[in-house]
């Protein structure tokens, strides 16, 4: 039994150590796996803000993941083909700069989250789950039926986008970049959780009536959390698209939403580094079980079922002695 802070350092240390060892052993594929874990962890941390801290069970976070991915795909594909995105009323050109792409991804996914959140948060409980799932599916069908950006086939980007001072095509440098983004996101989310905003959000999760009674506007509080959560997941989507140099409607599918949720439950709901541990374990399982059997999802399902039924708290919860601050 360890204090949670130690576990967090352990998780992040492991995630950092694996690609460094892989670099020494000249195993670029393992570095890519670690990068994937770091990027998916960002998405999980984003969802965990809404789901763990706010108790908002969103089954539609693939929407923001996909919007972030397509922000990258659209900007980079226009830069790649030297065609402007629009000329009237003013000229907007594509870009290969990650910083610009991230900004666009964050803003675009925040806007979508604002729209979806404003409608979905009018409901609660099981309605909220179904409504967020449905809106996610709406964007999925839109991405499939909109032919301008590849439709069902998706978009390929030939060269990874650039970051000042880095060669992003070098696996270890790109890992470093994604890991740094993960650390910044964790830092920001940790600050948020401890701020009056985070405490109020958590309070409204535990007892909505009481939060309302002390004068908190619960709807606006949750909407803010939902938008920040969507924006972080959107950033992760842009990184994920850059990792694969490919975007497709799959990023929008309900399955992606489910996977992001699985990271959280495997790692531990409402734990700061829970999604990081969960994403890393997921990638490990995918790699190990996927090598054993083509049908590895059966085992994944069985493990997930076990964790939900018998091992609440996930990996971080199992290792940590301190109870999480609230019961679900």
């Amino acid at each position: 039994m360890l204090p949670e802070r130690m576990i967090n350092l352990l998780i992040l240390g492991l995630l950092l150590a694996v690609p460094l060892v892989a670099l020494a052993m000249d195993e670029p594929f393992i570095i890519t796996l670690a990068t994937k874990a770091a990027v998916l962890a960002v998405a999980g941390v984003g969802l965990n803000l809404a789901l763990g801290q706010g108790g908002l069970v969103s089954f539609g976070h693939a929407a923001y993941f996909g919007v972030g991915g397509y922000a990258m795909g659209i900007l980079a594909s226009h830069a790649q083909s030297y065609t402007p995105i629009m000329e009237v009323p003013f000229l907007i050109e594509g870009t290969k700069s990650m910083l610009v792409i991230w900004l666009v991804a964050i803003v675009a996914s925040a806007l979508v989250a604002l729209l979806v959140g404003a409608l979905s948060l009018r409901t609660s409980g099981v309605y909220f789950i179904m409504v967020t799932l449905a809106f996610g599916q709406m964007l999925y069908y839109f991405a499939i039926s909109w032919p301008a950006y590849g439709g069902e086939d998706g978009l390929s980007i030939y060269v990874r986008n650039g970051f000042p001072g880095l060669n992003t095509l070098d696996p270890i440098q790109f890992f470093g970049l994604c890991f740094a983004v993960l650390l910044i996101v964790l830092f920001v989310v940790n600050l948020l959780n401890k701020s009056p905003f985070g405490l109020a959000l958590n309070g409204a999760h535990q007892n909505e009536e009481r939060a309302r009674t002390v004068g908190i506007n619960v709807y606006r509080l949750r909407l803010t959390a939902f938008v920040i959560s969507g924006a972080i997941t959107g950033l992760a989507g842009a990184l994920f698209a850059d990792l694969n140099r490919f975007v497709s409607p799959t990023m929008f599918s309900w399955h992606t939403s489910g996977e992001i949720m699985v990271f959280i439950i495997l790692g531990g709901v409402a734990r700061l580094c829970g999604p990081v541990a969960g994403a890393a374990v997921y990638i490990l399982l995918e790699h190990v079980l996927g090598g054993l059997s083509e049908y590895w999802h059966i085992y994944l399902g069985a493990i997930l079922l076990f964790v939900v039924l018998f091992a609440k708290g996930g990996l971080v919860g199992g290792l940590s002695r301190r109870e999480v601050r609230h019961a679900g």
Partner: protein
Amino acid sequence: MSIILLIEQILNGLQFGVMLFLMAAGLTLIFGVMGLINLAHGSLYMIGAFAAAAGAAATGSFVLGLIAALMAAALFGALIELTVIRRLYARDHLDQVLATFALILIFSEATRWVFGSFPLFLDTPDFLSGTVTLPGGILYSKYRLAIILIGLAVAVGLFLLISKTRVGMRIRAGENDREMIGALGVDISVLYTMVFALGAALAGLSGALVGAIQSVEVGMGEPVLILAFVVIVIGGIGSIKGALAGAILVGLTDTLGRTLLPVLFASFMEPSAATSVGSALASMLIYILMAGVLLFKPTGLFGSA
């Protein structure tokens, strides 16, 4: 657009709506009585379709395939209720979502393992193939008409079951106060298993009937599941009447939107752009409908707060 084509599309929309009703009725019943959100309902739909295809292929009889579908779906439904689902009634919705998501993964991969990745095909039976002439000289597929009639018959049967029979009385009592009917001596866990198996059988029937129109493949259940969620959100959760109204509304909106929107846009846009904008918008139409319902009546058309 000719009036005959329009009527045909309305009938197609009805047929689609009736299919959605079979799914949504089970979901809403299970939620109403047990308070459970079941994502694996789509898997039961898939199991129904596969059982029908395998049963019909083995026996050569569509009706026997249909019976196989009902039995397989009800059986698997009862099985997962006894092993997994009943542990979830007291849990929060997050646990229910994740556990039933795990069940989807298991069922989908197991089906792929048993039947392979290639879709199966289920032929419409001879006595329902071909077309029938409706009043006004409209030719319509006999099979699709049969689906509409079966769906409406199930709706009536379900309504009678719930409002007139002893089991239905217990189901309604379970929705109102599950502790009280337990205290009055009703074996509540048997009731729960029965309700779950009934919902599963409806999903299986729906999958089997659709299986003869579309291909039977792994992953066919989830898009329908999500549409059924839209139906429930529009109709109001826990209400069979709401499920029927929502399903017909969604079925008609989706089918008519896909036909009419491209035509509508073509009246003021160039044809290729009209087709792409129209079809993209049509694919989003029912979600926009749902958003509209949420704006004005967040608990759904027939829901209570």
